[in-house]
C-alpha cells in the first residue's frame, strides 16, 4: 500500500468535513471518522490537563461510548436534542504540527453556536486533535475539547457533540 504524503490542506479539509457532518447531524458518519481506539473528551473547565481519575470531566468517551453518544443523539428519546437544535461550527487559527509523523497534531480555536426554542447558546474554546492516516483516509485518534468559558452558565449543558 502506498501512503501518500499528507498536506496541511488535507488536514484542514478533513476538519471542515468533520464540522460539517456534525452541523448536518450525520453523527454516525462523524463517529466513523475515529480510529478503533479513538477517544473524545471534554476535561473540566480551567483544567485542560486534568486526569480522569482525579477530576470530574464533562465527557470522557472511549470509542464505544462515542458511538453510543452519536447513536443516542439520533433517537427521538434523546429529548434534549429532539427536535434537533440548529448548530453552526467554525474552526479558526488552525495549527498543524508533525505533518510527516505517524500522529499529526492539530490545534484550533472553535466557536459553536446552538439555537433551540429561540435561545442561542455559544460554546468557545480550543480543539486538540491527534490525526492518523488509515489507508488513504485521515482518521481521528483523539479529540479533546478545551472549553474557554468560566462555567456552563448560561448554556447549562453540553448536549451536542462539540
Amino acid at each position, binding site marked *: 500500500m502506498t501512503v501518500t504524503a499528507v498536506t496541511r490542506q488535507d488536514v484542514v479539509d478533513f476538519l471542515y468535513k468533520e464540522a460539517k457532518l456534525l452541523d448536518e447531524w450525520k453523527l454516525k458518519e462523524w463517529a466513523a471518522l475515529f480510529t478503533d481506539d479513538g477517544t473524545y473528551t*471534554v*476535561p*473540566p*473547565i*480551567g*483544567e485542560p490537563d*486534568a486526569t*480522569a*481519575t*482525579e*477530576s*470530574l*470531566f*464533562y*465527557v*470522557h468517551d472511549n470509542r464505544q*461510548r462515542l458511538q*453510543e*453518544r452519536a447513536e*443516542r443523539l439520533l*433517537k427521538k*428519546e*434523546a*429529548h*434534549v436534542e429532539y427536535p434537533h437544535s440548529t448548530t453552526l461550527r467554525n474552526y479558526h487559527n488552525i495549527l498543524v504540527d508533525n505533518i510527516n509523523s505517524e500522529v499529526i497534531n492539530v490545534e484550533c480555536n472553535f466557536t459553536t453556536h446552538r439555537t433551540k*426554542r429561540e*435561545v442561542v447558546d455559544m460554546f468557545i474554546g480550543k480543539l486538540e486533535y491527534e490525526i492518523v492516516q488509515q489507508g488513504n483516509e485521515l482518521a481521528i485518534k483523539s479529540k479533546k475539547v478545551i472549553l474557554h468559558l*468560566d*462555567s*456552563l*452558565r*448560561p*448554556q*447549562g*449543558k*453540553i*448536549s451536542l457533540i462539540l
Partner: protein
Amino acid sequence: MSRQLVKDNMEKHEFLVHRSVFSDREILARERAEIFNKCWLFIGHETEIPNVGDYKRKKVGGRNLLFVHSQDGEIRALYNTCPHRGALVCRENEGNSRAFRCFYHAWSFTNDGKLAGMPGKDGFPEDFNADGTKDMKAVNRLESYRGFVFVNFDDNAISLDEYLGNAKEYIDLVVDQSESGLEVLGGVQQYSVRANWKLLAENSVDLYHGMPTHKTYFDIKQSQDPGIKRIQLEGRGIDLGNGHAVMEYVAPWGRPVAQWTPIWSEDLKRDMEKMKEKLKERFGEERADRIANYNRNIIIFPNLVINDIMAVTARTFYPTSPGYMEVSGYALAPIGEDKEHRMARNNNFLEFLGPGGFATPDDNEALELCQEAYTNNTEVEWNDISKGMVRGEENALATDELQMRSFWRQYNKILQESFNREKEVAHQ
C-alpha cells in the same frame, strides 16, 4: 395577604401545587427571606479545603462567600466583601493563602478574616477596629455532618444535627461505603437550568420519570448487560421530616461499592465481592446489602441533593430569578480508591450524570419545558403530585411522589407561616 399554594387532600388522595410558585417574583422574594435566609444550606465538602490556608469561593444562598481553612485550623465562611467599601476581596476561585488583600485600597486580612493592615494608618484613630467591625465578617453559623459543611444565615436557627434529623441515617449509608471517608473530585460542574429551582428538587427524587425520560440510557444498559430482561426500578419512598426525603431502590446499573456489572472486568468483580464481604463484617448482612446494592436519592431541604446511584453526586442550586437557577454538581468518591475502581466509577458517573451525560441534559430539557409552559399558569393553575397517595404515605413506592410531597409540605408550611405573620401585623 394569604394564598393557597398547596391542596393536600388525603381523603381524595389528591395533592396539588399552585403553579404560581414557579413563576411569581413575589414568591421568590418570600423564598429568599423565609427559606434561603433561614434554612441550612450546603456550602461544600471539607475535603475541598483540606490544608491550612486552602480556600474556595462559593456562592451560597445568593451570597458571595469565601470557604476557608484558616490558620487556626477552623473552617470558616467569610463574606467576600471588604468591610471598607465593599469590593470583592478575593478574586481567585480557589487557592492557598495566609492572607487576602482587597485591591481597591489595599486593606489586607489574615485568612480568619481579621484586619491585618491598610495604607495610611495615621488617618485612623488608634483604637480603629477595636470592636472588630473592620474585619471580614464570617457567617456565624457553620456546622458540618460527616464532611458535608453547611451554613445558616439565621443566628437563631436550630442546630444542623437537629435540622438534618432522620436524613442523617441516609447520609451515613452513603459515607459508610468508605472506611477512609469520601472526598470531592476536582472539577466541580457549574451549570444552569432555565427553570425554577424547585423543579430540580422534585426531579432529583423522582423515579417515576426514570423510564420515559431516560429510555436512551436504559437502552444502553440493556445492550451492555444481556442479563437485564426488563428494567427494574423498585423500592421505597420515605418522608424524613423537615422537608427532607429519600427514595431507596434497586436499579440495573453497576455501583462502584459494590454491585458489579458486565461492562466491568473480572478483576473488579472479585474486588467487589471482597468489598461486600468487608461491609458485612463492618455492618452486618442487611446494612451491607443496603450500602452496596441499594440506591439512594436524598433531598435535603431546600436545595441539596445527594445521589448515591451509579456514582455519588451532590448538587446544590439557587434561583437568580423564578425561571433560572445556577447549579453546582460535585462528584464524591472514597479517599484512596484504587485507580481502576475510580475510573469505572467516573465512567459510570459521566454515562448518566452531569451536563455532558446521557441523562442529565434530558432532565434539564424536561424542567425547561415545564417552565416554558408555565406561561399558561393563569388558566391552567395546578400541578398534580398525587401518585401513591392511594397506597397510604407509609407504603409509598420509590416510583411514587411522596418524596416530592414531603418537600412541598415543608415548603407550604414555611410560606403559610410567613403569610400568617403578615396578616397578624396587618391586624395590629
